């Protein structure tokens, strides 16, 4: 059992990082470009972003591999650089000195029929390839995240577990808040989806992106009663607003931190942020979390 798995077993509170893409955009990544391209072209900026999170108190950082599956890389003109990008990104995250490095696995960006023309065989191949390359780079765990289709999340989970049988795998879906509760855009409801992931072998399950910390607090309450496995919750820094032609997530670090400390107190083991959260949000949250992790 590696030390991250051990930490999951002890149910210690683990502070994750915040958004990476939005942080790189603030450093000049052009809108529409793939953040993964900076792993190759501007590694120092990626490394510095990770370091800023570690300095702010993140126990674990996500390697910049969110879009580094073959299907998505092809769209950014990086089709033949899967190994270079994934291995390089894990190395940059490791260089930050973080206690733990999470290999980040995001969606292919395709949808299954009737919504799109996605092909599960191709997905599986892409996730297996990325999983193997990432596993060889030596992360402490995997985090499959921002999945809007439970089917794709389960496919990724199966492929990652096959690629790296000994590493813990976290899986986060992206939910919207509807009148009838929390659903993915494909209509997967919260509690049954989290249970399906846990049954599929996920070592921790949860939600990231789209929702604000206030909505995530409600989601976390439902999630905590739905499953017994550790939970991971990463909201955005509020709803997006626009200023001077650019887009911002404007929630103040303190407001974010107060709500996320409440999320942690519900028994959510891993807390962090998604779009628009930056090291200030993580630092503010760090101050509000119990100093030595939550007792079991």
């Amino acid at each position, binding site marked *: 059992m590696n030390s991250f798995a051990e930490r999951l077993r002890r149910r210690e509170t683990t502070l994750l990082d915040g958004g990476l893409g939005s942080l790189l955009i603030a450093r000049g990544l052009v809108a529409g470009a793939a953040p993964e391209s900076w792993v190759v072209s501007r590694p120092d900026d990626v490394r510095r972003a990770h370091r800023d999170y570690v300095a702010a108190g993140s126990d674990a950082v996500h390697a910049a591999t969110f879009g580094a599956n073959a299907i998505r890389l092809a*769209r950014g003109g990086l089709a033949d650089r899967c190994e270079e990008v994934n291995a390089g990104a894990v190395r940059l995250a490791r260089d930050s000195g973080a206690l733990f490095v999470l290999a980040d696995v995001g969606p292919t960006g395709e949808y299954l029929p009737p*919504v799109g023309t996605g092909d599960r065989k191709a997905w599986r191949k892409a996730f297996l390839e990325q999983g193997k390359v990432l596993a060889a780079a030596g992360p402490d765990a995997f985090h499959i995240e921002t999945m809007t289709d439970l089917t794709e999340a389960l496919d990724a989970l199966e492929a990652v577990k096959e690629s790296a049988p000994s590493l813990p795998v976290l899986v986060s879906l992206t939910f919207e808040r*509807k009148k009838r509760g929390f659903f993915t855009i494909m*209509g997967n409801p919260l509690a049954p989806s989290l249970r399906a992931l846990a049954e599929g072998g996920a070592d921790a399950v949860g939600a990231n992106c789209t929702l604000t910390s206030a909505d995530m607090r409600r989601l976390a309450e439902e999630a905590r009663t739905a499953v017994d496995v550790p939970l991971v919750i990463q909201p955005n820094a509020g709803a997006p607003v*626009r200023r001077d*032609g650019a*887009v911002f997530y404007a929630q103040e670090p303190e407001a974010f931190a107060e709500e996320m400390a409440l999320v942690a107190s519900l028994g959510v083991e891993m807390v962090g942020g998604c779009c628009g959260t930056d090291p200030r949000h993580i630092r503010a949250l760090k101050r509000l979390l119990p100093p030595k992790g939550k007792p079991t």
Partner: protein
Amino acid sequence: MYTEMREAVVLGDAARARRLAEGVVSGGGDLLAAIEKGFAAGIRKVGDLWEEGEYFLPELVQGAEAMKAAMAVLQPALRERHAETSKGRVVIGTVQGDLHDIGKTLVATLLSAGGFEVEDLGSDVSVDRFLERAKENGADIIATSALLTTTMPVQKAIAEAIPKMGLSRPPRLLVGGAPTTSSWAKEIGAAWAENALRAVAVAEGLVGAGRRP
């Protein structure tokens, strides 16, 4: 009959929608009424169910597919009967860096059903490609969708590039997508539609001011 058409779309039954459309055409029925009171009413209902959280993407897309199946039958027939009275030309696409296709495709379908000639450029469309197609097409409207806060600024880039096309009658810009707002549209000097159904009315308003001869 209109109820059946509406239902075929609400239930996402493309084969039934096609059959019903063929029935209207062969029976010499009112084609526009079939669209407006039947199939388009169905797609509006699908939109309502989506907002209610009863329908999700798969149902939404199946509804749009059923609508498309009906339109594939009705549009050629309409052209034949009315020698095509186009409301205007639209090039539509999702902006560069953004792969979200569904909302845009729905808008394209509804615009087409609403009497516009629509060229759908797909997703991940560059600024240059929008301009090039609009110029070649003599488009009245460039309609752009952005579903990510990181890709919204591309709409601004398009807005800024349109006046530089050197056209005496440059196309109007219509923007949409979840993160967009009326104030965003106002700031970049574009028209805005909050959802696919509104997009048709807004597009009609845009071409109404100066209809193509």
